[in-house]
């Protein structure tokens, strides 16, 4: 296999997100949000890898598992999913059907696009609401093996859905600016 093919293999797993069309003043903030998100995701991902594998090691060496490892890893996983979902949104990774989009002429296609965005935002707002109310209820609850408040994990939902709403706004704004500049050129 020549080196070119190896390059192609790596291309498939690039972690760069597609560029967005935002006002110039907004871009540094957006890049900051993405960089911070990636950093948090990396810390969480490495943390649960170390935790789970160290559990295996400790079981071999001391013959028993560490009581808080399982619970902590599960909490980290929730954060990992909820934060990672916004990166997936920016990547266009959330699987969707794309039947109508391709068949329709431009104008109905635009209408369908915005309808889908409205439905997405409606969902995200509902879940933000649900997340906030679940968080409120979780403060007095403690997780058994960890002895910490459930709020530590339940806060992942309002934060995650809040982030998703932010990124959804970015994507819609970017698409709208693209449409407007295309219309302007005509």
């Amino acid at each position: 296999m020549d080196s070119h093919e190896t390059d192609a293999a790596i291309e498939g797993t690039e972690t760069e997100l597609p560029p967005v069309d935002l006002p110039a003043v907004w871009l540094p903030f957006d890049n900051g949000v993405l960089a911070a998100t990636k950093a948090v995701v990396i810390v969480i991902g490495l943390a649960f890898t170390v935790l789970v594998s160290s559990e295996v090691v400790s079981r071999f060496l001391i013959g028993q598992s560490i009581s808080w490892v399982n619970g902590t890893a599960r909490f980290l996983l929730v954060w990992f999913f909820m934060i990672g979902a916004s990166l997936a949104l920016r990547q266009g990774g959330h699987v969707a059907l794309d039947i109508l989009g391709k068949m329709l002429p431009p104008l109905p296609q635009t209408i369908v696009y915005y309808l889908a965005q409205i439905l997405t935002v409606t969902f995200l707002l509902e879940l933000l609401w649900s997340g906030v109310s679940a968080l409120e209820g979780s403060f007095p609850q403690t997780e058994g093996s960890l002895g910490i408040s459930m709020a530590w994990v339940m806060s992942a939902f309002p934060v995650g859905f809040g982030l998703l709403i932010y990124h959804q706004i970015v994507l819609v704004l970017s698409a709208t600016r693209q449409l407007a500049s295309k219309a302007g050129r005509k």
Partner: protein
Amino acid sequence: MIPVVGIIFLVALVVGTPIAFAMGLAGSSWIIFFEGIDPSVVVRRMFGIMGSFPLLAIPLFSMIGILAERCGMLPDLVKLLQMLLGRLKGGMAYINVANSMMMGGVSGTAVSDVASLGRVEIQMMKRAGYPAPYAAALTASTAVISPIIPPSVAFIIYGLAAGGVSIGGLFMAGIVPGIIMGLGLWVMAWFKSRKAGFGTIVDRPRPAVIFAQALRVVPFMLLPVIIVGGIVGGVFTVTESAAVGVVYVIVVGFVLTRTLKVKDIFDSVVYSAIISSVVGMLMGAGAVVSWIITRNQVTQQLADMLVMITSDPTLFMTLVALTLILLGTVMDATALIIMFAPLVVPIARQYGVPEIQFGVVFVMSCMIGMVTPPTGILLFMTAAFAKVPIEQVFKAIMPFVVAAMVLVGLLILFPALTLTVPAALGLG
């Protein structure tokens, strides 16, 4: 009120809202607005599944896939396969199949499998002079087998979504059907190569060169041994095996081959977050919908209806398989598993179908749908990578679709194909 959930879901789906969001929108709207239940229920349902230990295996397996690619383990394997099989007529076709059997099924969804591995395979086959439609069709059909050979993310998702199905048992159950399908694809490639006169790609290297390359591949070959062996031997759980796998690849990449950079590790985590959070969101939204389904006894109503149609378990499984293949032509397999496993698995139990056998039939049917014309999504992807009109791929894929359907039929008729291995290992 249940039709309302369905209508919201379908409308959202058709206009192109991501599947997870469409499910979540339908479920949460129903809970919050139609039933007036405390809104926190939605997120608490999501937490129940998203914070489950077995699900942790998915981001870890995704990390293994990327790390193995970055540190050169996978390219080394491809090189060895080329040396061993390249001088056969149609060698690249065999390599494509062997490759998918060994390293597929790790990334979470068949779509991302094709996007990463499939793209390379198509390029390699085209460069070796194979017709592009054949390259596209073969690559799409190998995506059907890789998710049933362990380690399989599809089976983890199924085991969790169905509730209480042994994931280790499913892993083992996939081995025999996976090998049958792989051999079947090889035989088909052999016939095709004879007829079309596909060439060889390399001269036979000296045995010493092959041996040296085989030695380089040893660390990679140990990876499935550690993962599968560890699970079968009861040394660790599926999730733990995945974490140990990540650490193993990192150690090999840093100490043994010295091909891994710190940036590769960071990239693997970020990429894994992107891939696996899609699955996480689907699982979360699926948990909300399945809560509604349970609460309204939809499963029981459906079961009653099905029993009126047939009381024969074989016919029931055939109906389920055909329905899934049909739905799979328009929907991602992961989403399909998450949506329908909680609904159908309890019914399968009522029919007395062994749940591991049912699991393999279920997952394979979802995968076949994704390569079935005229809408199978994997075909569109591979056609785009191969730069050929989709119609040509439709023609080239048909023998593979038929072969895969025959295999599903065999799995339905002969439970031994799926149940023997897990039973022998005490995982049934």
